[in-house]
């Protein structure tokens, strides 16, 4: 038990990212409002970004911009996760944009953005079932 707690403490970055991720995942799964799901998706994605950056983090490091005369004791941060996450952030916002556009269309077509009501309407159309 002590070991476990100590482990959690020493890996608190990871614990936090997991917590954030689960909050997002919960919102995506349990919330009925379509926008709320997108918010959840955003949380989920940013949590993963945090995870990547934690991987590359070096305590006492510095920004990976090369400069002359840097003392050897100060390492540069790992630049690769930064690069990857720059890409991922843009991908994430693209998905958000598409999701929101879909939601706007759904609102126009159904008059609601609540999952339950949409399904009920589908049922009424005879298009329900999985």
């Amino acid at each position, binding site marked *: 038990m002590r070991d476990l707690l100590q482990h959690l403490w020493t890996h608190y970055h990871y614990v936090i990212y*997991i917590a954030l991720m689960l909050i997002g995942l919960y919102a995506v799964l349990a919330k009925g409002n379509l926008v709320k799901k997108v918010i959840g998706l955003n949380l989920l994605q940013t949590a993963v970004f945090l995870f990547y950056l934690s991987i590359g983090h070096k305590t006492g490091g510095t920004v990976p911009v090369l400069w002359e005369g840097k003392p050897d004791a100060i390492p540069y941060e790992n630049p690769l996760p930064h690069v990857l996450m720059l890409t991922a952030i843009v991908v994430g916002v*693209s998905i958000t944009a598409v999701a929101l556009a879909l939601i*706007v*269309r759904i609102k126009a077509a159904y008059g*609601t953005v*609540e999952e339950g009501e949409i399904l009920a309407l589908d049922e009424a159309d005879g298009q329900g079932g999985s």
Partner: protein
Amino acid sequence: MEVLILAVLVGLAIAAVRVRDLLTATAILGAYSLMMALLWCTMNALDVGFTEAAVGAGISTVLMLAAIGRIGRREGGPSRMPLLRLPLLSMRQRVERAEELEEGQGRAGAWGAVLVCALVGGLLLYGTADMPRVGRQDSPANRKDDPATPANEASISQRYLDESPHDVGPNNVVTSVLGDYRGYDTMGETCVIFTAALCVLMLLRQAMPRTGGRRRRDGDA
């Protein structure tokens, strides 16, 4: 400092999920993104922090606000049909769903979600068991060289740091990698933006009267 920001982040995330007014939730999400950007800056990921601030806190929020402007800010009840429902239930689900709707409750969906989250969380926590502590310089991803793994004398990150000045040029290694070593990822990323823009346009033009489409497009640019 980090611990403080992390705690705030969790608080904001919970708030964003719990609050029932979508406008407020969006605002909280924006704040969350800003905090995240701040955190990354303290972790020396300046480029990422700036991008998150601009894209996550900025563009995302604008998009959300634009969308909420069209669809209203009230959130209804919980999900009545979790997306990951077991398909076997689908045979009976017609009846059940009807009943559920009548009773106006969807607790089953919420509990299902909790269960899934617990499984995922458990798996992730198990994954941390052998992870190196955050911030170590000798973790596999960060190491300079690792005698245990002769296949790679140094991680590629270290090679980027060492070789980019004469390979590529710019002092900012992130720029070098982004623009040159892994330029094709960036091209893919551009392609994603293009795709998303095209998709959004196509979706919105299909439905809206022309004027609406015009206004919306401006919001997206």
